[in-house]
């Protein structure tokens, strides 16, 4: 991973790769169609594990010195929004912790800035709980966008009513369903910091919610915002993709993985699920362009096998 990013930096600009060339990696889904146009394009912008990195990384000679910064991210997002009609901006958690901004302002500034950047949604990472569940609950007043989590039961905590199990965003004719998958807090978050919260299995609860979004809410695409991590011993994004039927795309986090190429995993319905993650600290902004078109689904060019 580290080698990869070096190579990427040596090229100065990060890669723009097209999977399978013009054949495209197609993801079949349920049977709703669009009107007025043959195809529609959705641009998904995403971050994860930004870790309170509001200013660029200090010029200290470290690997990513001078990179990142929220003010630059805003410029980039604005530019892409001007160029495309349907843009989603998503985050996969661990917004908090990592610079003194969090120590002194408790996450308020991070959430206010994400609101200014007009994030459409985020999910909870484990570090959101670093100052306790009550502090998290208090800080959420500064987030002008929903936090989505499908597998934490927070009904007995201060977070009750402040998270969404799922969320639907309409972009033109497109209905995009979002779910959120949180990591098992045991042994990761101090017990006292998530007291009263119950963790449910991401696969079962996530797929059930995704099924509802597809079948009842007629979503054209279901995206899981995940903080489970990639290539973990425990349940992770690769396993979730392989063990579910209704999730199309996983925007991941937790493992700070810079993914030059998204992973692709075949799900229980035999369809490919794309997994992508954009490193950490706002060093990069991830971008995935999804094209929707009428007609039969095509097959994929590359499948990642889960052992």
């Amino acid at each position, binding site marked *: 991973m580290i080698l990869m990013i070096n190579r990427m930096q040596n090229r100065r600009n990060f890669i723009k*790769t097209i999977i399978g060339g013009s054949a495209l990696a197609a993801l079949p889904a349920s049977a709703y169609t669009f009107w007025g146009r043959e195809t529609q394009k959705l641009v998904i912008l995403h971050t994860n594990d930004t870790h309170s990195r509001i200013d660029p990384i200090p010029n200290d000679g470290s690997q990513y010195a001078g990179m990142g910064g929220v003010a630059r991210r805003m410029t980039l997002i604005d530019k892409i929004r001007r160029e495309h009609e349907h843009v989603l901006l998503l985050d996969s958690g661990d917004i908090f912790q990592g610079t003194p901004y969090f120590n002194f302002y408790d996450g308020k500034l991070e959430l206010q800035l994400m609101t200014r950047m007009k994030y459409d949604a985020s999910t909870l990472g484990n570090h959101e709980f670093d100052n306790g569940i009550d502090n998290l609950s208090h800080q959420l007043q500064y987030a002008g966008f929903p936090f989505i989590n499908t597998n934490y039961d927070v009904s007995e905590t201060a977070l009750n009513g402040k998270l969404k199990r799922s969320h639907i965003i309409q972009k033109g004719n497109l209905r995009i369903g979002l779910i959120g998958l949180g990591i098992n807090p045991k042994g990761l978050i101090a017990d006292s910091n998530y007291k009263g919260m119950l963790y449910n299995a991401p696969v079962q609860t996530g797929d059930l919610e995704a099924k509802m979004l597809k079948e009842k809410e007629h979503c054209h695409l279901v995206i899981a915002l995940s903080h489970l991590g990639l290539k973990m011993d425990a349940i992770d994004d690769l396993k979730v993709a392989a063990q579910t039927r209704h999730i199309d795309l996983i925007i991941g986090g937790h493992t700070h993985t810079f993914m030059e190429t998204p992973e692709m995993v075949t799900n229980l319905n035999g369809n490919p699920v794309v997994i992508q993650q954009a490193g950490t600290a706002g060093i990069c902004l991830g*971008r995935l362009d999804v094209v929707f078109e009428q007609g039969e689904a095509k097959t994929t060019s590359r499948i990642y096998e889960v052992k």
Partner: protein
Amino acid sequence: MFRLYTSLLLLLLAVSCRQNYSHSISSHELIAIDTTILDDTAVNTFIAPYRDTLEQKMHRIIGFNQKTMSSDRPNSPLSSMVADIMLAEGRKFIDSADIDAEPRPSLAIVNVRGLRTSLNAGDISIRDVFEIMPFENVLTAVLMKGEDVDSLFRHIATIGGDGLAGASFTITRRGAKNIMIDDQPLDSDQMYHVFVPDYLADGGDSYFVFGKAVEKIYTRLKLRDLIIQHIEKLTKQGKQITFDGQARIVDARKAAK
């Protein structure tokens, strides 16, 4: 009205017409956020007062570091230094008059993953210490039975080592051996004080073994403050911080293969 009618019609068509469609990823990229992208002025203005207040607190230089210190398994200069500070402060805390506790053999553990970055060579600012120890963790004294301390060392062996002070041991393929605490072999019948961040005392980073504690005393001493005070004290004495590359934990697993 026309718009409403059209919307309804579209909705009906969408629901009644069961055509297939496909979606595909037409391109993907990780766009580097570097100096080629200019700051958004409005966002910068919004951050400015927060940044300025913070900068005043953060830029103060408290000492000098000759050689970059990292935090790694099984041993590293930074994790050893922080564990040493915790051990010294923990002993001071236990000895203090208002704590009703017998003197006992003691050791300190800090999780390598809890020290988030290296301490670079050069001037040390308050900010540097915040970057190393961003968490609000407090020093915690955990009283444990010798047999549970044995389990604790086996856990540290499983994860390949963590920051350790006051003790040494060897990681083998079967667990931990040659466990020495305060220069004495580990005694299962003895009681020990283990100084850790409250995060570990609460079972964080999979230190579930602290669930077996006989007693936990949470001090109000933040680890970050202890590190800052330690560096300031050395600077005042005209000393530099110690780079301790010594192996407190020996990993014998590779040698055994």
